[in-house]
């Protein structure tokens, strides 16, 4: 007669099955966020925000009153303050194309040999998984004049402005 506290074969098997079932139940019932999945979410966000800027830039005249270049040209050069002052025309367009997203927009351009970055739309502090997309537009004095904007350009001057949008999901 063996009096030691040993594990019998059947009990061992039962314990093993129990442990495996527990591990299986936990892994199957919760959605594990693997790096690939959060990557996919970021890719989606980046894709949509760069699409929105692109679509706004290329939009034909029959669709929109002002395309991206005209929106930028019509800026009155007043920096945005939260929440009252922002670039209304651009905000209206982006809000229509990206419902459910929040975004801040900056304009970056060279003035007197220095890179100037001005905030034009502020919707709050960007979250952890924010993405930035960019689009360049070229302004002429003619466009600025037509849109009644605040830029002062010579008649033969071209100004390249980088539209920088930081977008995030809430």
């Amino acid at each position, binding site marked *: 007669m063996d009096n030691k506290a040993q594990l019998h074969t059947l009990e061992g098997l039962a314990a093993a099955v129990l442990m495996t079932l527990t591990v299986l139940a936990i892994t199957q019932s919760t959605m594990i966020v693997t790096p690939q999945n959060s990557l*996919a979410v970021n890719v989606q966000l980046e894709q949509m925000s760069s699409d929105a800027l692109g679509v706004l830039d290329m*939009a034909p005249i029959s*669709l929109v009153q002002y395309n991206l270049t005209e929106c930028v040209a019509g800026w009155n050069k007043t920096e945005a303050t939260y929440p009252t002052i922002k670039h209304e025309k651009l905000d209206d367009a982006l809000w229509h194309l990206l419902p459910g997203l929040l975004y801040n927009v900056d304009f970056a351009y060279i003035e007197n040999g220095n890179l100037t970055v001005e905030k034009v739309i502020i919707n709050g502090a960007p979250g952890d998984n924010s993405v930035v997309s960019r689009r360049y537009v070229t302004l002429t004095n003619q466009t600025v004049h037509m849109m009644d904007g605040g830029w002062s350009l010579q008649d033969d001057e071209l100004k390249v402005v980088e539209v920088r949008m930081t977008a995030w999901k809430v």
Partner: protein
Amino acid sequence: MMDEKGQIAVDFLLGISLFLIALTFTVQFIPGMFMSGSAGESSLDYTAYRTATILAEDTGWWVNNTGSGSGTDWEAHTSDIKRIGLAVDDEPRSKLTNSPNILSKTKIEQFMLIDEDGIIEKLGLYNNVDGTLFAYGYNISIVSIENNGIPFVINGNATVRGSTAPDDQEIAKITRVVLVETGHAAVLNANELTDTINIKGPYEENVTIQIRNLNGTNPSFLNATLENVTLTQHSDFTITRKTGWTSSEVNGSIHINDIICLDFDHGLFNSSNTYRLDLSFSNVTLDPGPPFVSYNKRSTPLYEPAYMIVEVW
């Protein structure tokens, strides 16, 4: 002395250690066993991304059997399709497009008619396991942003392909912001607009006229007549004003900065005649003509913002 308390035996310790080592080894080396979102499934993400990108940014390509003909206008050569893409292209001989994310109406129309096997093969919606092809499930839809995600209807077909996504499976989904060609419109400045507009039928889609930069003090819209018959608002045509991205109905008076959109029912222009459309405003002076503005010469494609959603499982 013999110890009869319940202590751990060395046998058990050895056994359980071996078991745990074996379990850890199995979990580590067969990633698909316990993890959802594993290597095998994440290839769905790439498939969805690739499919959405090809459809939105590429024009497609066809080559015939002898290799003598090729172009991006695959919608006119459906038996020789090499690649499916929906982006518009005005130069079908060259492979370049400068209009990604702008989708052509005729291409979408043909895309809805291609047979199931063709779609799966041309868009690569399958997994190749040791030479055997397993088709993925997919759902590709083009929905209106303004209309709360309702698919467009082009030529009587809703712009949806594939089956409904199942609830109990992992789905890879990519959404693209695109512009969809839904009809045509003539964009006219008030100073080039004449009282009369000539429209040569037949038209299968609504005839849209956009008027910009109307001048005058307190201008208002009176009526529209077609071949001297006064048209009824709402049933024959609608008139809206557009400020930025918002449209609202016009009841009489107009703001000077608004874009005026007149949308005429296509049923009014169903035979191949030249129709005479007269627009009448008060407090607006228009060029009485002739020559009259020709709608057919001035019309350009009309686009609507949309989401193209690709789901793969």
